[in-house]
């Protein structure tokens, strides 16, 4: 026991002061996460600012954001293993880990969000499969598809964990991890297949099928969410190692890898931007009039135009920076481009949920507001803190960036 305490003490003292302060903050957030999690799970959702008008809040915004941004994992894997863009190899481990964490915390936040967490298994036991082969409820598809893809991510993460230098000493572990890695293209293909469904269903389809809701009903919403994930996901996949490099004060991923993925993300962001403009145009001209509603009237309230405006502006910044070589190769601009890319997708989700719920259903109502309680904030921020801690732990103990470990070995 004393050895463990000594090890932990030495480990802690080996960290620079700024890392220690960051860890204090992260641990505090995790502690608050645990406290409020107990409160919500045992005493219910009455402690949130959600209500019968504003049925979903910050946790579902987080879920949609996590899944869309975690979508970078399937897309990067697809480009690497299926399209053989080998320059992305240095990014793949980190990408798989971020994808895994995004999906893990999507499940965790979903468990908090449902009123009966102990009945969460009903989604598997009594799915709303409907009369046809495809699920009738988009949420049934989300539950099943997310689960399958999460299993794929676990399998993809497994060889990365096994490549830890202590585990890798055992030949059986080494060869198992090696051959599992060789089969990774199969899982990348399965992951892509599954991701196309749940990215579309959770991000778009779930909202697009609500035929009685004027701000959500759109036939193409399913596809918009897929394009959004393909555009925004890679930005997070580049931003996380960039921040890790900044903290570690050394470049963890070769520039080539960043530039290759940035070019791909830049092109997909153009597609996303055009699709989103088309989406807003059809909403104004085609879908809102079906309800005798006016888009301009619906865009009022607390989260109307500024959210969409910020989203489009962030998309444009990402497009310019990621597509223009001069900007892309400049470190500061590049990071600004990545942040803009992530922000654009987050704002899309904020628009879907926060603004979607604030729109009045009856002519005598005004726009609604939503102000998350401390329970909601700390469970959300605590999730982000847990993800950050897991990522930091992996950077330190698992060869998340093979190039860096390779260089260090020599």
């Amino acid at each position, binding site marked *: 026991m004393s050895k463990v305490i000594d090890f932990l003490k030495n480990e802690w003292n080996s960290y620079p002061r700024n890392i220690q302060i960051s860890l204090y903050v992260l641990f505090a957030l995790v502690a608050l996460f645990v406290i409020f999690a107990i409160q919500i799970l045992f005493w*219910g*959702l*009455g402690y*949130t600012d*959600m*209500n*019968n*008008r*504003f*049925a*979903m809040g910050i946790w579902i915004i987080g879920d949609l954001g996590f899944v869309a941004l975690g979508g970078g994992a399937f897309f990067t894997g697809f480009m690497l293993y299926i399209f053989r863009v080998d320059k992305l190899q240095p990014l793949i481990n980190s990408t798989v880990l971020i994808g895994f964490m995004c999906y893990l915390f999507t499940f965790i936040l979903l468990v908090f*969000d*449902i*009123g*009966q967490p102990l*009945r*969460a298994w*009903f*989604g598997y036991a*009594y*799915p*709303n499969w*409907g009369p046809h082969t495809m699920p*009738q*409820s*988009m*949420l*049934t598809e*989300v*539950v099943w598809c997310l689960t399958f893809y999460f299993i794929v991510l676990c399998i993809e993460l497994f060889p990365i964990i096994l490549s830890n230098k202590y585990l890798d000493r055992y030949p059986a572990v080494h060869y198992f991890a090696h051959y599992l890695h060789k089969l990774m293209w199969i899982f990348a293909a399965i992951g892509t297949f599954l991701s196309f469904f749940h990215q579309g269903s959770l991000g778009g389809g*779930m909202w697009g*099928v*609500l*035929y*009685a*809701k004027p701000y959500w*009903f759109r036939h193409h919403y399913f596809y918009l969410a897929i394009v959004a994930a393909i555009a925004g996901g890679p930005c997070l996949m580049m931003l996380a190692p960039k921040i890790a490099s900044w903290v570690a004060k050394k470049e963890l991923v070769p520039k080539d890898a960043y530039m290759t993925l940035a070019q791909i993300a830049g092109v997909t962001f153009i597609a996303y931007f055009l699709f989103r403009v088309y989406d807003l145009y059809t909403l104004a001209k085609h879908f809102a009039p*079906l*309800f*005798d*509603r*006016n888009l301009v*009237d619906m865009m009022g309230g607390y989260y109307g135009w500024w959210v969409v405006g910020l989203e489009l502006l962030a998309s444009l910044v990402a497009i310019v920076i990621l597509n223009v070589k001069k900007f892309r190769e400049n470190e500061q601009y590049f990071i600004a481009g990545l942040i803009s890319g992530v922000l654009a997708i987050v704002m899309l989700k904020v628009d879907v949920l926060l603004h979607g*719920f604030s729109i009045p*259903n*009856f*002519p*005598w109502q005004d726009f609604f507001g939503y102000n998350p309680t401390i329970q909601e904030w700390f469970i959300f921020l605590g999730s982000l803190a847990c993800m950050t801690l897991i990522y930091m732990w992996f950077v330190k103990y698992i060869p998340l960036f093979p190039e860096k470990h390779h260089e260090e070995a020599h």
Partner: protein
Amino acid sequence: MTRRWGMVIDLDKCTGCGACNIACAQENNLPIFKDDSDVPKRVTFLDLIEVTNDKDPKAQYPDVKVAYIPKMCQQCSGNDPNNPHPPCVSVCPVVATDVGEDGVVSQIWSRCIGCRYCQVACPYEARVFHWWKPRYEGSFKESLNPDVSIASRGTMVKCTFCSHIWKRERDKAIAQGITDINAVTYTPACASACPTNAILFGDLNDPSSPVYEPKIQKDPRAVRLVHSIDELRTKDPSEYEKRTKIKEYPNPKVYYLTSQQWLRDKISGFKNS
């Protein structure tokens, strides 16, 4: 004959007394909290909404008018009433809600996982969630209705047109040897309690019923909640046809009657309000 239950609420007769709301809460074992002033989190199947025309620039004092709208689940059927597709039913991931042959949208509390997706899908804010554990202050616990199960915290509940009363009436009929489930009719608690007879309930398909749908649809006072497409049915049938091919409409089974134009405009939707 298969029943298709519906409701007609005459707003010209409604005084806003709230008896329907109380009767509904009592009949359906709705919880009573010490402080029910937190309206957005309150558990109520029938909401009594006060609307005025005070935002209308033409309405100057003393012409400002007030009306009360009893709003419950509108028991939507979608475009095809013979193959009902309410907005809230198909979205449920665990089949906790369904629509019966009688057109009533049911909810099984004990199956519900509390995801609230049905609440998101409902355009009428008719579904309510148990944000807190249901409590019954004082002696209210002794007056609970044994025909209605109490929902747990974290589940969705809704108006079912008091379909348990129909079951009770059917059980009585079966005891008398009548096995046709459509042989009997019933009256939900809100309609029974209304002192001015403003709420009428019955079978929309039955010509002898006070809510016979073809007759109600011809009534110039009839209007449905946020359902402005109804206007097109007579004014522009081709546009109506076109729109209903593009998307489903809720097609609720609750009709409101009023002779006041401002109220009709307000109820029908955003187009004229």
